[in-house]
């Protein structure tokens, strides 16, 4: 009895330390992993002079940003500062009135949302936006949609190759489910899951889409300390293992200061500061935005 338990434990450890293997293999087939010398230097995502207004409300004012290869960029700022708006502009859900966005030197400003997602800009949502009627595994499979290689007719007729492709994709999704430690609920309908698990499913869904840049919109909002640590661990694991740059919007300063390479601070649609965590903590503009002007001078 004990041996078997130990075996299982060992097996599980092994699985986690090498998690996401299948996904990584799948991604390596399509494009090479980033080179060492590019990390931290080559720009993968760039926004130039983005302006976004809803009627008279200026949501984003002349935003410029750069995301480099293998970088974890955090965006912080008070509520309503325009952080989510920026992500929405990047993923093509809102159209900026002015400004351009480039992804690896390719202009994506006018691409459709699903085209941008297929390029690999995958995101999670602040207010959970899962497909509530599907199970966890089906949610992940639905996100594999652009990568599944058979047309709907062979799906309807269920040709052998369609069946094989389903199984291959299923294996990749199960791998992600294992990585996120959600095996117990893989067949549960998402609508019935607890909040933390839903947030995790969102992360899994973004992973299933084969991200080349991961855009996370408040992945830890409303979680307790343990759940935040879990989530931070997952994000760092993904970041290390897939070697992809991550954009993280988060309100928890502890987490942000710990994990981010670089931080951008927004206030009222304007970018008020940018720099490493150490620089940001002493920046007077940031302090005045968060704590009030009287603290900024100190």
């Amino acid at each position, binding site marked *: 009895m004990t041996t078997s338990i130990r075996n299982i434990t060992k097996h599980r450890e092994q699985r986690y330390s090498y998690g996401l293997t299948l996904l990584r293999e799948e991604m390596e087939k399509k494009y090479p992993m980033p080179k060492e010398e590019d990390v931290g230097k080559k720009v993968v995502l760039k926004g130039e002079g983005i302006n976004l207004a809803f009627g008279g409300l200026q949501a984003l004012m002349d935003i410029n940003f750069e995301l480099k290869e293998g970088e974890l960029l955090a965006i912080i700022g008070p509520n309503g500062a325009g952080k989510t708006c920026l992500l929405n502009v990047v993923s093509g859900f809102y159209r900026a009135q002015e400004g351009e966005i480039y992804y690896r030197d390719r202009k994506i400003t006018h691409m459709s949302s699903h085209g941008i997602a297929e390029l690999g800009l995958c995101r999670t949502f602040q207010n959970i*936006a899962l497909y509530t009627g599907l199970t966890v595994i089906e949610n992940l499979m639905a996100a594999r949609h652009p990568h599944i290689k058979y047309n709907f007719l062979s799906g309807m007729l269920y040709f052998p190759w369609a069946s094989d492709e389903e199984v291959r994709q299923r294996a990749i999704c199960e791998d992600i489910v294992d990585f996120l430690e959600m095996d117990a609920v893989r067949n549960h309908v998402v609508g019935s899951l607890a909040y933390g698990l839903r947030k995790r499913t969102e992360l899994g869904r973004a992973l299933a889409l084969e991200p080349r840049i991961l855009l996370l919109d408040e992945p830890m909002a409303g979680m307790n300390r343990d759940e935040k640590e879990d989530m931070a661990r997952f994000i760092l694991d993904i970041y290390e293992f897939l070697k992809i740059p991550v954009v993280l919007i988060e309100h928890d300063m502890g987490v942000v200061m710990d994990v981010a390479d670089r931080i951008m601070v927004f206030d009222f649609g304007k970018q008020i500061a940018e720099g490493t965590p150490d620089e940001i903590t002493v920046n007077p503009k940031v302090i005045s935005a968060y704590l009030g002007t009287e603290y900024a001078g100190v």
Partner: protein
Amino acid sequence: MEQIIKLIVLGLCMGGIYALVAVGYVVVYKSTKVFNFAQAAMITVGAYALYQALIVWSLPIWAAVLFTLAVGVALGLLVERLLMRPLIGQPILAPIVVTLGLMLLLRGVILMIFGGQVYGYGEHFLPLGAWHVGFVTLPMIQVYAFIISMVAIFALIQFYNRTRMGLAMRVTHEDHVVAQNLGINVKRVFQYSWVIACVLGVISGMLLGNIQGCCVELDVTGLMAIAAILFGGLESIGGAIVGGLTLGVLQMLTIGYLAPLMPGEPIMMVPFAFMLLILIFKPYGLFGLVRIERL
């Protein structure tokens, strides 16, 4: 030229009734966010209730009209309490199916009681005859119908703007939860909206029954009025009035100019084609608000 003016005037008269029906749709939609397809059947109910009181029971006009309005009130209360209240909070398909079903239910009940014949009020309701204004001949029933519709709509707007309940209803239009937190009885507001809509429905039913005769197909006329609302967006009473009048004129012009060119009865099809065109080019109505979606 004479022809055009004639058609436009007649169209405006007809459009008044469309506007009344359309406002009925809008009242319920604004308050409850349920689109009441059964408004179309309220017209039939109104027409037949008046027929029952006026012709079968030979009541005097005032009593017959009062009876019809009472039927409208009772129907509104019943529908709201029995059908719509259990569906609060259900996905959008549920109210659509229920109101469509209610439309057919009312059609069924009327078929069962009255059979499928077409009835008319003859000269017992509004005076027949016509006025001659210059070269335009105006049938009195059309003019009276227009006037009554406009008076009813005017009364509704006054109710919204002048009374306490009207204020509560306007608050509820904005947000149900907020309204409830402010101490407004939202269920009561829903009840009022349904009653108002049903009363407007039976009024337009009386007028339409007078013009077109009582038949179960009157509800198709009600469905045509949907085109009028789309014209102005689902939540605007002003838009519904403008839309109704436009629809009436458009329909008359079609009868005048297009009908000889087209086979069959394009009068039935035109409002729907019009509706489809509006939806394709202006999805939220010509004056409707465009929602900004959030993620």
